[in-house]
């Protein structure tokens, strides 16, 4: 069995072991298996990367031939190039540390084994997704992570709200998957293969028999479902109902970047699809801005982070839209570190406050949980784009290509993203201030129990904070350049590079200053502004009423159609009616024929006799 197959299968083994035996063998066994196998996958991924660097050519490994139809073989094949390597390392690396964190966070949960089984299952599907060569394998992983996400969002399923959030995530993703499937059909129809490297090569080598933009838009619909872009972003904030490590692993660091990975993987297609690319950039920038504005008015610590994730994913799609695929993956890479650190830090805060998530009942925690505060500060500064932290490099490159790329970069795109960057710095430092600084608003009975988390949690936070601080020095775009070349830069924009970097830093600083101005001290100014713009605030706090709009535009009509057309007309009138009519006919006929069975023996004899006599008479007459 090859290395790649092993990388994928180890977490599956963990899922089976923990799922089947975990409850019987105890928490120690679950922890060792649950954390050990992802770490082993990570080690194997490092080995595979070394083999890749030594050999140069992408590693292809056929694990199994799934089906053979005519000349086309559908194989479960794994494909390992530099792009897959980056994704695999992020997934297994960040995944492993989050597993370790979970041993502390979930320590007292009674479904400990189930949790680790699900986490391992998720990792298996995610690795299938990033390592699959064919879109078919990718799609299996794609659906699988959706399933694992559903299971983990509804992990505490006793609360109906959590189960509803899980269903919402699943159904919203199905909408996107419909587009993805259609895109796959279209590409298979055109090329007779679903191997993504072959499709890319076909697009790059000349004119093809299919509209690249149509295929690109269809695939992007799938990507926008998974990566929570407008209009399918509604599931991600609700997905915060799951345990916090799940939010960190699935809804920040790995699964939601699957859409970005898909577009980057199909870069050959998108390079030939300027219309689809423009759509990707527009949706990305719009989502980034839209989500950032919502994040300002949220009061749940995890929801703020969730909207910030949606916003950062928008940044990545904006980069993809202007052809800077390597830069988008770079942002995936750095975002995985600082967003995982932020979510896990939030988990540590929630842990310290015995489950409290409302930032209005926090404040002044910096002194009580100093290690969590320090790591949260680093990650917040990283996402805000303070040099030289990781987020600065990736976000700065996105802003630069949004401005200067010859493939659709424009000052307008830059302006939207720069405004988003300002908002990002603002809402993240607002969060930091309201949670860790200022006066304590913690309720007395909770304040009594505030404690720093165990080392398994804080240690992970420190590791992720270090990665958030220095991850930007790994030049991912350069590493990926042979695979995903950076777009050409408009000549006129070139002299503006340095001033734009300075401007980006100034924007981040302005965002922080604004947050300090409004939320420093007693946060009275923020309250005053909130009073003044109560209407705007209500709209933002209610997420622009998108959920209500969907409910009115889709949910209710669907319910009405289900009730009146499908239930009353279809089910009751048509199906039930037909069956009832058939049953009534059978019963009526039976009642009629039952009369013949009088039970009078003599009558039967007489009738037999009469019949025999009539037959004889007929024979005598006719024969």
């Amino acid at each position: 069995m090859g290395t790649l197959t092993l990388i994928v299968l180890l977490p599956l083994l963990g899922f089976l072991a923990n799922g089947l035996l975990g409850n019987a063998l105890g928490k120690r066994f679950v922890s060792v298996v649950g954390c050990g196998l992802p770490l082993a996958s990570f080690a194997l991924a490092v080995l595979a990367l070394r083999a890749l660097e030594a050999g140069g050519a992408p590693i292809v490994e056929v694990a199994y031939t799934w089906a053979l139809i005519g000349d086309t073989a559908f194989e479960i094949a794994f494909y390992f190039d530099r792009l897959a390597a980056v994704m695999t390392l992020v997934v297994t690396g960040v995944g492993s540390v989050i597993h370790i964190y979970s041993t502390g966070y979930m320590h007292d949960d009674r479904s400990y084994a189930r949790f680790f089984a699900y986490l391992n299952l998720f990792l298996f599907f995610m690795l299938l997704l990033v390592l699959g060569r064919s879109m078919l394998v990718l799609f299996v992983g794609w659906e699988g992570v959706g399933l694992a996400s559903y299971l983990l969002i509804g992990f505490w399923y006793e609360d109906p709200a959590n189960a509803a959030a899980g269903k919402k995530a699943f159904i919203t993703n199905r909408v996107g998957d419909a587009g993805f499937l259609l895109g796959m059909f279209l590409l298979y129809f055109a090329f007779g293969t679903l191997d993504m490297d072959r499709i890319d090569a076909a697009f790059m080598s000349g004119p093809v028999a299919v509209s690249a933009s149509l295929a690109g838009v269809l695939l992007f619909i799938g990507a926008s479902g998974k990566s929570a872009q407008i209009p399918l972003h509604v599931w991600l904030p609700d997905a915060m109902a799951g345990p916090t490590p799940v939010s960190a692993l699935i809804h920040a660091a790995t699964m939601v970047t699957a859409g970005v990975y898909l577009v980057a993987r199909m870069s050959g297609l998108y390079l030939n699809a300027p219309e689809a690319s423009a759509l990707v950039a527009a949706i990305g920038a719009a989502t980034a801005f839209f989500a950032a504005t919502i994040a300002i008015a949220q009061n749940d610590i995890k929801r703020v982070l969730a909207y910030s994730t949606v916003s950062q994913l928008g940044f990545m799609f904006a980069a993809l839209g202007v052809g800077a695929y390597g830069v988008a993956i770079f942002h995936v890479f750095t975002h995985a570190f600082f967003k995982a650190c932020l979510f896990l830090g939030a988990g540590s805060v929630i842990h310290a406050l015995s489950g409290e998530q409302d930032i209005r009942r926090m404040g002044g925690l910096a002194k009580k949980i100093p290690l969590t505060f320090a790591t949260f500060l680093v990650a917040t500064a990283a996402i805000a784009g303070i040099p030289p932290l990781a987020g600065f490099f990736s976000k700065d490159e996105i802003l630069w290509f949004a401005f200067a790329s010859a493939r659709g970069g424009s000052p307008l795109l830059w302006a939207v993203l720069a405004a988003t960057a300002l908002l990002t710095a603002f809402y993240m430092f607002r969060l930091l201030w309201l949670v860790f600084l200022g006066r304590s608003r913690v309720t007395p009975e909770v304040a009594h129990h505030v404690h720093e988390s165990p080392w398994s949690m804080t240690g992970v936070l420190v590791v992720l904070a270090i990665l958030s601080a220095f991850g930007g020095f790994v030049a991912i775009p350069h590493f990926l350049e042979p695979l995903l070349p950076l777009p050409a830069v408009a000549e006129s924009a070139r002299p503006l590079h340095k001033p734009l970097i300075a401007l980006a830093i100034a924007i981040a600083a302005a965002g922080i200053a604004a947050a300090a101005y409004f939320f420093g001290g007693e946060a009275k100014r923020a309250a005053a502004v909130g009073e003044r713009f109560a209407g705007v605030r209500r709209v933002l706090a209610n997420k622009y009423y998108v959920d209500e709009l969907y409910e009115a535009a889709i949910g209710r009509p669907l319910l009405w159609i289900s009730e009146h057309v499908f239930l009353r007309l279809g089910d009751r009138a048509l199906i039930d009616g037909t069956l009832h009519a058939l049953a009534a006919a059978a019963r009526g006929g039976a009642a009629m024929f039952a009369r013949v069975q009088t039970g009078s023996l003599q009558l039967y004899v007489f009738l037999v006799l009469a019949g025999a006599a009539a037959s004889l008479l007929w024979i005598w007459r006719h024969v």
Partner: protein
Amino acid sequence: MDKVQLLLTLAAALFALGLLGVTVRRNLLVMLMCMELALNGANLALVTFAHQMGEAVGAVLVFLIFVVAAAEIAIAIPIVLLLVRRKRTLDPGAYSDLRG
């Protein structure tokens, strides 16, 4: 009227009598007896024809039919007995529980 015609008339009369008895009597035992009567009418016709043909096969066949009739009545009488034990009557109308 020669002997054969006489015997055939007798056979037909026996059969008709038996059939009439089965049809009109409302006593299970009498009905069984009438059935035997009808059977014997048919037997008599068989023997008569066998005699007319001058073959022994028909006459031998009659003995076989006797055996079958005996076996048949040996089953039928216990069935009637069991029925009577259940409902204390010989009227076949009392046993028409499955009528429509």
